[in-house]
Every structure is written in structure tokens, then in C-alpha cells.
């Protein structure tokens, strides 16, 4: 009886391991339009409304946690105002959330005006999902192909470029952030507009990007701004990232002036706090 139980347990374990390895191999080997990717996209499309609902339903919980963080930071003041805080807690939570949303949306409109993004038909979306693992820097927003969103469209928030659309469903889209290890953004830096390509410096670090392929003689210094270049580095075709979108600011340069120089920059956008984003659905300003 014991032997039978052990045998059964091991058989199931082996079966599950084999299933996982088969799935992994098949998924890794097939193209983006393969059957497993299709199943994944289909399931995601079905689950998107559920996730969106859950995200909205759980927003007060998130706000509550955020509120606790703020409270801890301002412990001294909270002591004096504790009685009043209890009375106003519910109202303050709601108002704070609305004000934060309003500020971000206003900032987005300001950025649109400053950079002339209106012609690129920006669509404002709410972040409904963020990848739970640091190995994938992705988010999901509640705007999809029904809103004119397509794969490749650049995505910004109220501060800067944050990524581009990599998967689209009917009512939602997956955005891969510029801090993901698969991302490369043609960029120019400093007052002289030195060309280069921005990519993550290392996996799992949302605050450190690196600009490669800048010429060794480029006179760049910490504090210089890095913007999107607007053309592809290989053939000067127009890039899907429109020119002039802010990316980040140079923090330090390793091996400056040599062939192996590494220009590190910190992105303007806080990738850990994304509530609203804008998808530029006509990145070339025309009929994209």
C-alpha cells in the first residue's frame, strides 16, 4: 500500500515536471503567433476585464497602504492630529486618491502641450496590472485595440517615456517598460545631441539605464538630459518613438572617453509608481 502511494506520488511529480518542460520548450521554440501564445493571449483577453474590475475594487486597499506609508513618514505630525485623522480618514483617502489622479492627468496634459503630442492622438489609460516578478518589467493598461492601440506604440506618463506596447487585446494592452532587458531606445543626449541607444544597465534595476554606442569623444556630463532620437540607428528610418520625448538624466560615466565608456542615466519616470499612462496611437503624427 505504502509502495503504491509512493509510486503514484512520484509518477504524478514526474508527469507534472514533464508537462512543464514540454510547455516551456514548445513556448520558447514557437513564434509570437504560435498556438501557445494564442492560448495565452486569449486567456489574457478573457481575464482582462476581471483584472480591471479587481484592480478598481482593490484600489482603496492600495490607497490605504499608500496612506499608511505616508503616515509613517510623518509620524510626528500624525501624533498631534490623530483624533482629527480618525474622523477624516475615509474622506481624506478618497480625496487624496482623486487629487493624485487629477495631478497626474494634468501633468500629462501639460507634457502633451509642451512636446506637441496632441497630433499623436494620445490615449490615456489606467494601469490595471504590474508584473509580479522583477525579471519582467511589464504593465497592463485598460486601453486596447478597440481604442486604436497597436503593437509598437510608445507609452509615456506625466514625466517621460516609459515603454512601448508589446501585446494588444480588445480592451487592454501589455506595455514593456524601458527598464526591461529586452528594450532598446534610440536616443540623443546633451546639448550637442550625441546619438546612442538606451537600454537597462542590469536586470531588475528600475533606476539605472545605460546609453551605448555614443562616440568616445562625446562631451557629455552628469546632469545632461537624454531624449528620444526619432530615427533608427541602423538606417535612419523614422523610429516609432517620436523625437524629443524625455527619457532620463545622466548620472555618471564610467571609463569616459574610451571605447568602453558606459553612460549611466536615471529615468525621469518612476517605474514603480505608475497609475495613468498615455499611449501615442499616432506616433508619426500621421494616419498610423
Amino acid at each position, binding site marked *: 500500500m505504502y509502495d503504491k502511494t509512493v509510486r503514484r506520488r512520484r509518477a504524478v511529480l514526474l508527469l507534472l515536471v514533464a508537462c512543464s518542460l514540454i*510547455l516551456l520548450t514548445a513556448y520558447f521554440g514557437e513564434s509570437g503567433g504560435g498556438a501557445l501564445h494564442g492560448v495565452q493571449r486569449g486567456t489574457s483577453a478573457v481575464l482582462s476585464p476581471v483584472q480591471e474590475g479587481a*484592480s478598481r475594487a482593490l484600489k482603496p486597499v492600495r490607497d490605504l497602504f499608500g496612506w499608511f506609508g505616508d503616515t509613517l513618514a510623518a509620524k510626528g505630525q500624525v501624533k498631534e492630529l490623530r483624533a482629527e485623522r480618525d474622523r477624516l480618514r475615509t474622506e481624506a483617502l478618497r480625496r487624496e486618491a482623486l487629487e493624485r489622479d487629477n495631478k497626474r492627468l494634468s501633468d500629462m496634459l501639460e507634457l502633451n502641450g509642451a512636446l506637441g503630442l496632441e497630433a499623436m492622438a494620445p490615449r490615456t489609460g489606467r*494601469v490595471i496590472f504590474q508584473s509580479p*516578478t522583477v525579471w519582467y518589467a511589464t504593465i497592463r493598461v485598460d486601453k486596447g485595440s478597440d481604442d486604436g492601440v497597436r503593437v509598437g506604440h510608445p507609452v509615456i506618463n506625466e514625466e517621460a517615456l516609459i515603454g512601448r506596447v508589446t501585446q494588444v487585446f480588445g480592451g487592454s494592452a501589455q506595455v514593456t517598460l524601458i527598464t526591461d532587458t529586452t528594450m532598446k531606445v534610440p536616443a540623443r543626449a546633451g546639448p550637442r545631441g550625441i546619438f546612442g541607444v538606451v537600454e537597462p544597465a542590469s536586470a531588475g534595476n528600475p533606476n539605472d539605464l545605460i546609453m551605448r554606442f555614443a562616440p568616445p569623444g562625446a562631451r557629455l556630463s552628469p546632469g545632461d538630459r537624454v531624449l528620444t532620437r526619432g530615427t533608427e540607428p541602423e538606417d535612419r528610418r523614422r523610429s516609432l518613438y517620436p523625437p524629443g520625448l524625455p527619457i532620463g538624466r545622466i548620472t555618471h560615466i564610467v571609463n569616459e572617453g574610451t571605447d568602453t565608456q558606459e553612460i549611466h542615466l536615471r529615468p525621469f519616470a518612476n517605474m*514603480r509608481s505608475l497609475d495613468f499612462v498615455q499611449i501615442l496611437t499616432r506616433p508619426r503624427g500621421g494616419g498610423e
Partner: protein
Amino acid sequence: MIALTPQLLARLAALGIGGVIVQTAAVSQLPIAGANADLSPLLVMAVGLLCGSLAGACFGFGVGLFVDVVSLQTLGVSSLVLLGVGYGAGRIREARDPEGSLVPLAVGALATFAFAVGFAVMQFLLGVDAPVSWALVRQTLATLIVNTLLAIPLYALVRRSLQATLPEDPRRRRRRAYTTGGLSPLSRGVDLR
């Protein structure tokens, strides 16, 4: 070994789906000390500890697959790692039958660590060529600490949600056996004849 009845399976499915949706819709967006809690290894650990290695492995595989599908990650990575976590937690229960109230805390920390390391190894095997940063190590450690703190309440929650469908709690079984004399040291090994 606990039999997987339809009621238990239904509850496990609801627990897995609900847990992953809460994880992706809320917990992933709540940075605590620069990291996010990851409920999936804790859920799998709790089910393994409560239901045994077979149920733990199946639940881990299912939760991992659902995480991969929902997150649009490479299919099979999380399921492979989490089935190992569930099986391991189940084997701890079957081989040791631990009783201490801090067991979920220790096993939760172990499960989170195993998941983080297993996931990282899989990523490297699949060809991620970016260097590992200190930020990633720091975030992994922070997640480990946050998960360790969450392990006991989450275990209690899972036990509460599965209790009605579990045949018997090992602790209750042992307590009953002691009170009825079945396992009492006084009634074993002493031949008075």
C-alpha cells in the same frame, strides 16, 4: 495522503485563481520597502503543508501555469518552480509532520527563497544576458522578508478556507489520539505482565 475530493479541488481552484488575481491586481502594485510581496509561493507552501506533496505539487503547477498565462510570461517557468515548492512543502508535512506554530513562517521563507532562486536559474537557463544587479538581490531579499512576515496569516487564511474539506487536521488527530490513549507514551512499550 489526503484524497483530492471534488470539494477540495473546487476550493483549491478558487484559492489559486483568487490568489493570483489579487496578486496581480493589488499586491504587485504595492511596493513595501522597495519590493513587492509574492503570494504565489506562500499559497503553494500553505496548500502543500495542509494537503501533502501530491496536492501541493498539482496546486503549484496550476498556480504557476495561471501566473505565466496571466502575466504573459514564458509558459512553464513558474509552474515548474512552484510544483517543486508545493512538493517540497508537502514532503515536509509527510516526513516530519511539524507541529510548531512558527512552521509556516520557516517553510514560507524557505518556499519564497526556493522560488526566487529557481526562477532566477530558469531565467538564466533561458538566456537572459543582462547582468544581475545589487538592486535585484536587494529586492529579492526584501520580498523574502515581506513574505516571511505574511506567511503565518496567509497560512491561517488558507487553512480556514480549506478546513471544511480536509479530512482531518494532523494536530487534531494527534491530540485526539493522545487523549484517547492511542499514542500516549504510557500506553506504548510498557508490558506489565
